[in-house]
């Protein structure tokens, strides 16, 4: 019941709607570019793996293993990049529809997906920072042990 309560004087008026429509258009464009980028990464992953596996110096040292490893790493990268791109696309579609049909539910869903985009990148950045911290700690430990 409380969820439906309105905040005083706050609406998405024509100016706000225009801004949200602009956000949705550019977000949709960026998400489509993101999908294309993901596709390119997957294609590169498949070809890079095959290419490295076929190179003779690597082939003698288990090149197929290196190729498969590169393919897997690239595909994981593409999968990670695909998630926020999908959220962004869903957000853009829902926000656009919400403005066009004046649909409150779609507006909330669109904003929820926008939140998910920022949440995803925030968490990913923390993970990357943690990996950096671990690398630095292990490097320092290694240096101390070597010294």
């Amino acid at each position, binding site marked *: 019941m*409380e*969820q*439906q*309560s*309105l*905040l*005083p*004087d*706050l*609406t*998405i*008026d024509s*100016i*706000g*709607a225009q*801004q*949200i429509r*602009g*956000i949705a258009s*550019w*977000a949709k*464009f*960026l998400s489509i*570019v993101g999908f294309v980028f993901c596709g390119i990464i997957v294609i590169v992953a498949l070809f890079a793996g095959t290419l490295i596996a076929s190179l003779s110096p690597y082939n003698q040292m288990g090149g197929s293993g290196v190729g498969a490893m590169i393919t897997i790493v690239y595909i994981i990268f593409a999968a990670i990049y695909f998630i926020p791109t999908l959220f962004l696309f869903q957000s853009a579609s829902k926000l656009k529809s*919400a*403005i066009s049909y*004046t*649909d*409150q539910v779609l*507006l*909330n869903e669109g*904003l*929820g997906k*926008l*939140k998910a985009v*920022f*949440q995803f*990148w*925030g968490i990913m*950045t*923390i993970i*990357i*920072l943690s990996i*950096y911290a671990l690398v630095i700690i292990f490097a320092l430990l290694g240096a101390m042990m070597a010294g």
Partner: protein
Amino acid sequence: MEDILSNENSMLELQVDAATADYMESAGWWARFGAIVCGVLILLVVFVVGYLFYMGQETSMNLGLGANNLASFIWLAIALVVAFCGLMLALLVSFGLKLKRGIEQYDQEKLESAFATLKIYFIIYGIVTIIGAIGTLFSLLK
């Protein structure tokens, strides 16, 4: 009469209800948080790269004018990337802050300004993506 007109208007407009405000606040919080953490990450990377580059430069001081030009070019490139990232992160932080204040103070102008800031962020991101895609296409065609 005015009340009736206002009610009719609000029926045609999207409202900021508790759920909408919650999603907006969360989006703004994560945008600010991500931007600040990302800023720290970029500063860390720039510091490490700059330090390694500076040390490399110190050890090869007598490489001649060509090396100095290359060093200046790399420093300029780093400065441009940092400036661009700084602008984008500042836009995200600004979006988050305006959204938060807009909801907390029931300020319609701040709410609209927050959306305008996010739009600018996406426009710059989109234009840079287009330039990057064209650049990549040209480099592939060469």
